[in-house]
Structures are given as structure tokens and as C-alpha cells.
């Protein structure tokens, strides 16, 4: 009970902090706006004032621009939130759909009910495990490969890079069939024969380890992110590298000590994007995880709320409530890492 209260207090606290922030900004904006219309004396004062006027107008323009796009961008998320709090009959009967639910009509019970529909924690645990190892893999392979492409001179570099790029030009759907066969041939699907077939459970069915290998391995690298990080590395001036060479710093040390920290915003972005990939994956896990208890969160979500009978309809409210709960860990991660993305880089001291 106490925990709950402190949690609510924390939420309240942060809410009030936020409104305070908005208030302060609004006040400042308003006083700036007012000051524009205060008549100044003398030419110098006039000039100062017109400059200030320009600055405020520019700022107002920027905020208006951001606000307009923020509203456009947030609409679907808002739909998800509001739908998760509605009564299911309302969703089907309201024309047009209402954009607001009175607080007393909000069905917070939907969240509890949605959890009863599927093993949220089992799926979440699997997803976190797969996301962790896949992201680790992606980071290692991507950082090394991007460094080679961005900084090292080797024969056939551009050609190989082009070859990498070309793989992005074939739709991923084409890979699925062959990769399924590969995973099967590797003995990961509980079939006899293949490198990993020894890992099966006693009754010959797929083990958790096999399922995880099949789920993780194909996603331990990504051309898309190699390209991304290569570009980030290319943003780092050559002089730094040459200076380090002169100092006798090894390539690996340079990568670890200088390039990785400088490109940290990009690396964190890759981390978030890749985790999101695991969160939304459902075709591959559905194919290669034989047992439902090995599958990932989106599989759970789809199974719990998909309709199988002709004429049946999904309980959108529970589905959206579940989707919100699925999203929650991602949002937490995003909040934790956000400040690192926006930290910015100051490179003084490196150049010595």
C-alpha cells in the first residue's frame, strides 16, 4: 500500500513539475511578448528591441511548428490510449468515435482484464531475453563492421559496402522461406539431424535454448544499422584519427576510447530501435518457436486478441490496454536513454 502511495506521489510530483515547467515557459513567453510592445527610447534601444522582437517571433515560430507536428504525430497514440479506457460496446457503437472519456467512465479495469487474457510476464521475459542478446549481437557486429567501413582502408571496401547495401533492396519476405529451411537444417526445430539437434528435450521437442538460438541468431547483425553507424563514424573528423595514429594508439583502442563515445547518441538510437524490432516481431517467432511458451510479446498479443470465427470481433479496448502494457517497458527504456541521446558531445580534451 505504501509503495503504491509513493508511486502515486511520484507521478503527481512529476506531473506538477511538468505543469510548472509549462507555466514558467508560458509566463516567460508572455513577458517577452509584452516587452516587444514597450516603446523604447533612443536608436540603440530601438535596435535592441527589434532584435529581441525578431528572436521572440522566431522562437514562437519554432514552437508553433513543433506543436503542430506534435499534435499530428500523437493522434494515433492518443487513439490507442483512449480506446484502452473505453467500454467495448462504445467502440462499436459510437459514430464518430469520441475523443474523450470522462474520468469516472474510464475503464481502468480493461488493463487488469487484458492481463488475464495472456501470459504477459512469460512473453515479456522471453522478449527481454531475446532483445538483450540480439541487441548485444547487433552492437558488437555493427560497431566492428562500421569501423572497418568508415576508417580502415582495405581492398574491395566500397564494393563490399555496395554489396551490403544491395541486400536492403530485396524485400525481407523473400528471406523468410530460405531462413526457415536453414534454421531447420541446423537442427533447431526439433527435427533430427543438424548442428544443434543434440539440444532437444528428452521427448524430442524443441528446447528453450534451441528456440532462443533460432530467434536471436538471424537478428544479431543488420546492414541497416551498419550503414547508420558508418555514417555516424564518418561525421567524426579525420584529424582525430590521424592524431591518434601519430600517438601510436591502436585502432581498437581508438574505436573504443574515441569513436564509440562520440557516436554514443547513434549507438543508443540503434539500441532502442533494435529492441523495438524484437518487441514488434511476430512472423519469425511464430515460425521458429515451436512451443507458445518460447514466443514473444507480439505473438501473445495477437493470439489473445485475434478473432478466428467469421463474424467475431476483437475486444479493441482490451487489445489496446494490452498494447499499452506491452509498450510500457519500451517507453521506460526510452526515458532512461533519452537524455543520453540528447546529451550532445563536447570534444574538448580529446584533441590533445
Amino acid at each position: 500500500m505504501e509503495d503504491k502511495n509513493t508511486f502515486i506521489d511520484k507521478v503527481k510530483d512529476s506531473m506538477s513539475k511538468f505543469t510548472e515547467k509549462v507555466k514558467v515557459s508560458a509566463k516567460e513567453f508572455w513577458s517577452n511578448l509584452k516587452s516587444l510592445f514597450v516603446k523604447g527610447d533612443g536608436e540603440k534601444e530601438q535596435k535592441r528591441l527589434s532584435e529581441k522582437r525578431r528572436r521572440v517571433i522566431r522562437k514562437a515560430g519554432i514552437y508553433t511548428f513543433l506543436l503542430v507536428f506534435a499534435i499530428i504525430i500523437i493522434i494515433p497514440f492518443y487513439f490507442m490510449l483512449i480506446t484502452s479506457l473505453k467500454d467495448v460496446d462504445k467502440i462499436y457503437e459510437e459514430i464518430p468515435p469520441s475523443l474523450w472519456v470522462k474520468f469516472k467512465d474510464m475503464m481502468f479495469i480493461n488493463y487488469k482484464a487484458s492481463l488475464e487474457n495472456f501470459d504477459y510476464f512469460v512473453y515479456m521475459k522471453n522478449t527481454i531475453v531475446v532483445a538483450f542478446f540480439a541487441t548485444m549481437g547487433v552492437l558488437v557486429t555493427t560497431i566492428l563492421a562500421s569501423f572497418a567501413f568508415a576508417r580502415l582502408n582495405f581492398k574491395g571496401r566500397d564494393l563490399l559496402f555496395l554489396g551490403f547495401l544491395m541486400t536492403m533492396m530485396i524485400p525481407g519476405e523473400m528471406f523468410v522461406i530460405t531462413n526457415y529451411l536453414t534454421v531447420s537444417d541446423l537442427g533447431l526445430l526439433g527435427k533430427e539431424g543438424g548442428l544443434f539437434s543434440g539440444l532437444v528435450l528428452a521427448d524430442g521437442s524443441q528446447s528453450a535454448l534451441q528456440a532462443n538460438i533460432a530467434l536471436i541468431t538471424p537478428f544479431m547483425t543488420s546492414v541497416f544499422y551498419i550503414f547508420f553507424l558508418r555514417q555516424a563514424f564518418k561525421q567524426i573528423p579525420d584529424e582525430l584519427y590521424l592524431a591518434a595514429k601519430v600517438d601510436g594508439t591502436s585502432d581498437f583502442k581508438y574505436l573504443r576510447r574515441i569513436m564509440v563515445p562520440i557516436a554514443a547518441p547513434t549507438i543508443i538510437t540503434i539500441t532502442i530501435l533494435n529492441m523495438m524490432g524484437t518487441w514488434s516481431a511476430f512472423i519469425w517467432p511464430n515460425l521458429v518457436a515451436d512451443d507458445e511458451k518460447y514466443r514473444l510479446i507480439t505473438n501473445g498479443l495477437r493470439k489473445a486478441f485475434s478473432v478466428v470465427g467469421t463474424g467475431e470481433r476483437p475486444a479493441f479496448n482490451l487489445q489496446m490496454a494490452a498494447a499499452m502494457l506491452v509498450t510500457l517497458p519500451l517507453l521506460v527504456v526510452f526515458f532512461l536513454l533519452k537524455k543520453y541521446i540528447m546529451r550532445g558531445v563536447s570534444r574538448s580534451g580529446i584533441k590533445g
Partner: protein
Amino acid sequence: MLERESNLKAWLYLAPALLLLSVFTFYPLFNSFYLTFLVGYNYLKPDKIFEAYTLVGNFKEVLSDKLFHQALKNTVVIVFVSVPISVIVSLLIAVALNGIKKLQGTFQTIFFLPYVTNAIAVGMAFAFIFNTNYGLVNQFLGWFGMDPVKFVTLGATWGTSMIALLVYTIWGGLAFKIMVFLAGLQNIDKQYYDAAKVDATPRSRVLRRITIPLLSPMIAYITITSFIGAFKAYRTVIGMFGASLAPPGLLPKDSLITIVGYIYSYIYDTAPGAISIAAAAAVILFVITLVFTFIQMWVSKKRVHF
């Protein structure tokens, strides 16, 4: 000697990625190429039988298919309209976001939200936005005295439904691009800006002379991957129109099909030979994308230190 050593080192750095890519990317890719040369290939049978080889038969079939022409036309429209708009808009948003202090975190979170929004919610929201009777777009048009436009409902034309699809596509691409641009902007050394401040350089000049050039690798990245991604558009069509790939009442069926939609409709087709049609279409898409990417790189070579 030195060069050979550095060659070896580079390949070592590349080895982990290369190993994984060879198994899960290059091999299936070449397999797809191979399938285009088969007739009547039946991958459902354990021994994977086929009837004969052909060099161009499957390509001919795809290229003479009216549905493929439709898919090509739709894909080209999506690529050339949605990519430039979404790149420019997201760049502006990222630069604006990078230039403010107050509420920066809040805005940043909002621009991230599309990423964690459930696809069904996105579909519901856009159905609402484009509804003929009460949709936001038509209410907006109503302010200017315009009659309601049928975008996604009965009576929608290819043009109006394409507009809705483009808006949906642009919306769907913003979050990622904003994130990448923001990360790219953050990679830029503050010292450049400090120097500019000392010189009292005007902002527009800072943007043109410092920000854009230093961001150019990221701009190149976004442009190239966005074009490649847009050539592979498909999910947005499903999200907007469902399995019929067209608004209700619009014939022929699949009026808004894309090339990947075309490929997908053949992939899980159990009829022998269907998979080769899918592979041939994929190779055609590959060639189109490749040529376009070459042109793009060639054009941008002068301006971007790519």
C-alpha cells in the same frame, strides 16, 4: 606488407557481421535469384521438384502482367512523393528540436511515440482522420468551404485514396527519421557552434555552412535508406486498406498494390511456380532500386562527403 596487414585487420573487424550475413542474408538472396530461372518449381514437396529451366520466362511473365504495371506505378508515386516530403519535414523538426531548450524532452518523447503505437490503433486513427463525414481532414477542408472528399470510404478514387496512403506513409516514416537526424545532430561537435557564436554568424548561415554539411552523412543515410524502404512499401497499404489493397468499391481489386504487395501475394501461393514469379518480381524491384540508388549516389557525390 603494411597494406596486407591492414587488409587482414579490416576483414577481422568485418568477420562477425559477414558470417551472420552470409548465412541469413546473402544465401537466401542468392537462392531467390536462382528461383527466377526455374519453371514449375514446387517447394512444398520435400524433394523440391521443378519442370525446366528458363532464363527470362518468369521475368517476361511479371513484366507483361497488368497487375505488376499497377504495382510499379503505385510504388513509384509513393517513392517520389513520400520520401522527399518526409525527409525534409523530419529534418526541419530535428533541427528545430535541437535548437530549443524548454520542453525539448517532451517533444522528443512525442515524436518517438509512433514507434510504440500499436498498428491497429494507427489504422483506427487514420480511418477517423480521413472519414468522409466527420474526419479531421474533411472538417479542415470544410473551413475553406470545400465539399467533403471521399478518401478511404465508398466512392474514393485512385487519386484520393492515394493521397490518404501518402499521408499515412509520410506519418509512418517521420519518427525514425527524426531520431536519426537528432542523433546525427548530437554527433556534431559543439565547438563548431561555439566558434560560429564568437563570429556572430547568422543562424541561416550556421545551418547552411555548419549543420547541413556536418550532418550530410546522416542525410545521405536517410535519403538512401528511405528511398530503398519506400520501394519496398507494403505494410502501409495493408494498414490503410486491409487485404483488398484498395478502398471499397474501387475496381480493379488491388488498385493500390505495391511491388512488394505483388511479391507477397505470390510467396505463399501453393501453386507450383508461383514462388519463381515472386522471386522474379523481387529481382526486378532490386534492379530498379539499385539503378536509382546509383543515380542518387552519383548526384550527391559532389555535395555530400559520403
